[in-house]
């Protein structure tokens, strides 16, 4: 995905209209539209604001992100994955990267 596509994708996931995002950033809606069509790029400061508003890392927006995951567990604590689980997930990611990935 290009920067513009990722931006549009995550904006929609967050349920934000183009106008609303422009308003939050204090820019014109046409500016956001140009970013999403890859005709312009936001500056560093705006990129940071985008990352905060959309609750997503700058790495993701720039396409530099590693694999991202979410889990479904039979455990109470949702954040403390045992090492064994992390290892198993890493192996799974290697497998899907080979099967589906470009790299």
């Amino acid at each position, binding site marked *: *995905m290009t920067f513009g596509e990722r931006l549009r994708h*995550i904006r929609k*996931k*967050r349920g934000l209209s183009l106008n609303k995002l422009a308003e939050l950033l204090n820019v014109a809606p046409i500016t956001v539209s140009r970013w999403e069509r890859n005709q312009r790029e936001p500056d560093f400061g705006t990129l940071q604001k985008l990352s905060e508003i959309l*609750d*997503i890392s700058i790495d993701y927006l720039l396409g530099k*992100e*590693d*694999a*991202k*995951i*979410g*889990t*479904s*567990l*039979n*455990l109470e*604590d*949702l*954040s*403390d*994955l*045992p*090492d*064994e*689980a*992390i290892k*198993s*997930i*890493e192996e*799974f*990611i290697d*497998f*899907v*990267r080979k*099967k*589906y*990935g*470009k*790299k």
Partner: protein
Amino acid sequence: MLSAIFEILEKEDINLEWWDFPDYLLGVYVEVDDCKIIGLKKGIDKSNRKLKCVLAEELGHYFTGSTYKSKNPENYREKIEISRKEYRAKKWQVFYLIPEEKFLEAIRKGITEVWELAEYFDVDEEVIRFYIKLTRVRELLKGGY
């Protein structure tokens, strides 16, 4: 209901794979190189109910964009962040499996026990317990039915 989930997977171009995960790890949603894959624990398909619940939770990760890096949290802030994202996915899951109006309908019919509700909606009891603790649902019940 399961077929509805498969339809969503198809439409959203999310792939399914089976993997030998540890017992407590029922499913993993992975985004890598612009591909979306749900990994399911082998054997989980023996129960349609479980499969449905896990797939709905993984879809919750996708639809709410609640994903994180595949490693242990390095500090408390990261830990909280992961919990928050897992919570957001779970919330999507329960409202998908149990729409509010259907829930009120069940209550009106006198189905109020956790196990009864689980049977009625064909979901795990854990899903019901999570659901009824949500503020949105408590408010709903307070409003009369």
